[in-house]
């Protein structure tokens, strides 16, 4: 349970959004890292930022936090510029691996960041919430990867923020710790706080976010609930030889999204391959050489960048 200190009573957000990104662009030399991102996050939402490496997740997060200036577009966090929101202690962020100062104790580290905020929670409380209270006297260079991640989480929590931004928080955590971590993250939102976390695990995005925003090649290519994204991104391919039946007919089968003909073999991209195979056999019992393969997530991301954007979320 998380109680809020009296000073931090949530105030109505001027433009109603926790985060509003408009036409955001950023290039590094000739590499276009972010190529036009528009995104609105409502207070209380838990949003997963899903995408492969190099999709532009970290760059977008850096701009959202005011660490990097966008080449074009605007960032508003609770209606103000990101730096003001950060200075007011409204934003807590867990940066990607590396951001721990060596040769100091965990307790000193969390306290250092705590005194640099206007309305922090006690350092001990942040360590407790992040599950690192027992590591307080430990030096930062003696931590395992998963422990270091939880210390970073404590650093993000200690400002008692309204918006928590986590850049690949579960890297280096084993499955159990990851689960405990995600539960703690959910608890944090219980009273209407907003969380945005970057990940490249679809499962994690689906399990812990209300909303999944898929980023690929610097653009948002999908935005919807976990289930919606899952059916699109993680679809399976059913392939079979169906004598005398064309792709247009097979495209009408249950759960089939689209069909490609590869010689006599038909390749059917499915949102529900179970339904598709039942329907196929019911209608065309002579279908043979049936194969079902799971889509590769990276390929699915790339495919999404070329196909139409799914809009599952009211924006």
């Amino acid at each position, binding site marked *: 349970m998380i109680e809020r200190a009296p000073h931090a009573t949530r105030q109505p957000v001027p433009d109603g959004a926790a985060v509003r990104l408009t036409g955001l662009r950023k290039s590094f030399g000739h590499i276009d890292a972010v190529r036009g991102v528009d995104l609105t996050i409502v207070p209380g939402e838990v949003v997963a930022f899903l995408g492969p490496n190099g999709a532009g997740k970290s760059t977008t997060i850096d701009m959202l936090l*005011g660490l990097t200036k966008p080449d074009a577009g605007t960032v508003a966090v609770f209606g103000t510029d990101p730096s003001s929101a950060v200075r007011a202690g409204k934003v807590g962020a867990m940066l990607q691996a590396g951001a721990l100062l060596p040769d100091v104790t965990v307790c000193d580290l969390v306290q250092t*960041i705590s*005194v640099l905020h206007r309305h922090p929670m006690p350092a001990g409380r942040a360590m407790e919430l992040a599950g690192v209270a027992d590591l307080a006297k430990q030096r930062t260079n003696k931590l395992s990867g998963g422990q270091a991640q939880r210390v970073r989480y404590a650093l993000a929590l200690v*400002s008692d923020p309204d918006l928590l931004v986590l850049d690949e928080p579960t890297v280096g955590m084993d499955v159990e710790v990851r689960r405990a971590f995600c539960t703690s993250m959910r608890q944090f939102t219980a009273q209407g706080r907003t969380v945005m976390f970057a990940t490249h695990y679809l499962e994690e995005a689906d399990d812990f976010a209300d909303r999944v925003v898929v980023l690929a090649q610097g653009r948002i290519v999908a935005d919807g609930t976990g289930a919606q994204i899952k059916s699109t991104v993680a679809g399976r391919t059913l392939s079979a030889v169906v004598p005398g039946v064309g792709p247009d007919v097979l495209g009408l089968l249950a759960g089939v999204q689209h069909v490609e003909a590869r010689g006599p073999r038909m390749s059917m991209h499915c949102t529900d391959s179970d339904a598709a195979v039942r329907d196929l056999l019911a209608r065309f019992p002579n279908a043979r050489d049936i194969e079902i393969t799971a889509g590769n997530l990276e390929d699915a991301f790339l495919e999404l960048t070329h196909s139409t954007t799914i809009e599952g979320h009211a924006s």
Partner: protein
Amino acid sequence: MSMALSYTLISARSTLRNGRYLVFTVALPLVLYLMFNSLYGNDTTDNGLNVAAYLMVSMAAYGAMGATITAGARIAIERQVGWNRQLRLTALSPQGYMVAKAAIAMLVAIPAIVLVFAAGAVVGHAQMSIAQWFESGIALWLGLIPYAVLGMIIGFVATIDAAQPLTMIVYLTLSILGGLWFPVEQFPTFMQHVAKALPSYWTAEIARAPLTHSSIPLAGVLVLAAWTIGLTVVGMAAYRRSGARV
């Protein structure tokens, strides 16, 4: 401002808890002092200052200088592990950060001065009035200001791997050429001139003035001020060049 102050105190405390820091900036000068003192401690210099007190100031300056430079140079580590990005996600302003870093460098020098002075009083039989002890200690401490800036410059220009060797080279060069290890009077004439242009010579020299009841040498104050101003100018350029990433 109270924010930068709390940050300074916590950072200084965490530095003082670091074993490696204590060895190099407190234990080593202390041991060297006791060693030199047992060899030459009973002599008296030409101007009537006992050698025990002379050596005590030299070694306290040596340790304190090391602590100050090392503290600033730690910025190199902070920059390169991304810790500065974490600090940018707080309410600490870039100016507050700079002031805090300089203050930390000055604070962590205090144990070296206090402990070597204590050894001088207890073991070394350096005899002075209470006022002399304080004047000397404070003059020494204020004479460390240029090294606080110098350390921060190293922190802004050096990579993680280069910061430590660079710190050691600068530190040892200043210590030896400034006459902290061997009295400048034993140097060849040319090297004596070099010493008198270095801040390290004057840091020790202004701290010794109260011991012989002479006034603080103006030349020393001017040389130290010139170094501080020059280094600050270089430091601001180095800070900008480092991408202004605080």
